[in-house]
């Protein structure tokens, strides 16, 4: 009889769908190898761009006023600029692989500690801001979706539009004018430059409050809108109807069944945004609040024609974008069991 289990067509059986551990490991290794290739290509492109573009001779910039030819030659040799281009590029990559980014062409300072300090400041800024904007977006986006068309929804989405439209440098200055301890009308938070003076973790966090809020403002708005539309779409899914038909509470339907599906597009966006911001895209916020991060470092390097520093910051940016996209792809599998790694 067809109802008996033995006669049934058996579906493909694989209980763990994320795949076994070794396939994930193989996937990560493969992606990391591709990351290396990407970084080499980007470094090479940056290298040629700055050699082709009229960016000034770093040797002359370094040598001071009216240098002798011998002095120029000596500096050229010490910077390795007398070598053929492929050797220069090769040396840079080889050293970078050992976490040695050389020295600044302008100040002669070793770049590694400089970069790491800047990275620390930027990471503080970006990670904190990301937490702020994710929290704000989760609350606002969820309420907006569940109360679609009501006053709270309209106010939130209107506010989101304002936040997206407000430029960071303007918002930053307004925030300082209103809330900075030194110049603010209501001096409650540490102002610009506070991060550089901060010594304890608590001081650093305090110094970051305004930068976090300013950087997170536009992102909160974007993510809230993203979550709202994603959640609205998910709530129409058949499995939401099933969850309701099972007799689950509406709270559980929303927070367990709908939200988990709705966050996928946010994860995608988060990977790209955090990668870019840590790599140096937080430059506006860093400038307004005088935070010595990677954005500031690269901006200063570009202004001075410091090709060595530019190269190192470009490498950092590319590295963080690659890594965060890898993390995003790994997160997909945690969220969605259908994702498989080949």
């Amino acid at each position, binding site marked *: 009889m067809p109802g008996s289990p033995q006669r049934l067509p058996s579906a493909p*059986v694989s209980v763990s769908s994320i795949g076994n551990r070794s396939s994930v490991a193989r996937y990560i290794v493969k992606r990391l190898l591709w990351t290396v290739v990407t970084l080499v290509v980007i470094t090479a492109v940056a290298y040629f761009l700055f050699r082709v573009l009229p960016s000034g001779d770093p040797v002359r910039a370094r040598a001071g006023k009216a240098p002798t030819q011998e002095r120029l030659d000596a500096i050229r040799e010490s910077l390795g600029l007398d070598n053929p281009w492929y050797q220069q590029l090769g040396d840079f990559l080889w050293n970078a692989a050992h976490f040695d980014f050389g020295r600044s062409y302008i100040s002669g300072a070793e770049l590694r500690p400089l970069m790491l300090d800047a990275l620390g400041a930027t990471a503080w800024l970006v990670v904190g801001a990301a937490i702020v904007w994710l929290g704000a977006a989760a609350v606002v986006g969820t309420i907006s979706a569940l109360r679609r068309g009501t006053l709270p929804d309209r106010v939130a989405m209107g506010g989101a539009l304002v936040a997206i439209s407000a430029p960071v440098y303007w918002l930053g200055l307004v925030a300082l004018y209103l809330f900075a301890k030194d110049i603010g009308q209501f001096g409650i938070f540490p102002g610009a430059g506070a991060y550089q003076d901060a010594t304890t973790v608590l001081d650093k966090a305090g110094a970051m409050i305004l930068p976090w809020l300013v950087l997170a403002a536009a992102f909160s708005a974007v993510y809230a809108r993203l979550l709202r539309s994603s959640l609205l779409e998910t709530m129409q899914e058949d*499995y939401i109807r099933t969850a309701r*038909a099972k007799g*689950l509470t*509406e709270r559980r339907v929303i927070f367990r069944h709908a939200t988990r599906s709705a966050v996928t597009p946010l994860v995608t966006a988060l990977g790209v945004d955090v990668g870019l911001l840590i790599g140096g895209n937080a430059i506006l916020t860093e400038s307004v609040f005088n935070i010595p991060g990677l954005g500031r470092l690269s901006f200063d390097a570009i202004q001075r024609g410091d090709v060595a520093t530019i190269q190192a910051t470009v490498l950092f940016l590319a590295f963080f974008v690659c890594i965060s996209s890898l993390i995003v792809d790994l997160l997909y599998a945690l969220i969605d*069991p259908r994702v498989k790694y080949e």
Partner: protein
Amino acid sequence: MTDSQDLTPAGGTTAGATRAGDGAAVPATDRPAADAPLLEVRDLSVGFRSEDGLVQAVGGISYTVERGKTLGIVGESGSGKSVSSMTLMGLTRTASATIKGQVLFEGRDLLTLSTEELRRIRGNEIAMIFQDPLSSLHPFYRIGDQIIEAVRAHNDVTKKQAKARAVEMLGLVGIPDPGRRVDAYPHEFSGGMRQRVMIAMALANDPKLLIADEPTTALDVTVQKQILELMDRLQRELGTAIVMITHDLGVVAETADDIAVMYAGRIVERAPVRELFSHPRHPYTWGLLRSIPRLDMPRDVELVPVDGRPPSLIGLGDDCSFRARCPYAAGCCRPGMPDLDPVVGAPEHALRCTMPAERRETIWNVLSEGGTPEQAAVAAGIPQTEEVA
């Protein structure tokens, strides 16, 4: 009205959900549950406000489901069969919906229950399965966890006990190796197996009523048969009453005890299954029967689709809604919507059509011999004008 907490995707605020005429006049909830039929739907109507006007999805339907029996509700898309069943479960409670009538489940009017009271009945005493088992299961959760969740929504048991129940149910619906498959994800099952999972989940709390909304439509024909046989077997073993919603008369022919044929939000014919297939009386039912192949008809008989399209549910007139598509309307139809009245001589057979009995017999005789609707109309002496054809 307590359904204002209902968070719905369509509604946002649901404060406006209105259910006029609920309960105030009829103290039916006082009736002892034992005498009452399991489910009695009385004059249920469901309308939705839309930009184009009020969509009268269900226009006043009544039916009864006895314990352990199967009612087949048959109709084409948009006939209101799904909406009416979703309404039983409270799944259509939104700001834009107007729900009237009574849905008496063991004597309690479900339409007057609060959201929380209704939640306790959903998935517990009344369960539901749907057309597409893939999209109806959450893709991110193991099927075991989804069944466990259903069990624990209504029973104070540990995860372990609930999982044991899940494994038991999976075995009951014929999933091989249920102890292992309980940890698999929906995408790792075939379509038929997924529907078995849905059935296992629906029956996990031993509901008294199972609403099956096109449960086999998305499946291969051979798998359809297996699922129907499974439901039949489970009904015998567990004594669950079933409301089987389908557009396919073939699906309910073997499994249902009674059949209600719906058209444009109303029941147009209702009868025990044998009676309906041997003496169909409504022109729309004839149309449905002549549009599917039957073994008791000559092989060379051509299948005849029902001409025309179902009417818009916005601004339905007062006349019989099938009139525009009815090949036999000329010369016998009267204006106005006919009532759903018992047929003289067949009290279990109710019909919403005013055609004289002799003419009805003549027409069905021609149709059941394989005649076309035109031949039947001529035999019954119905004038064939261009407008009618």
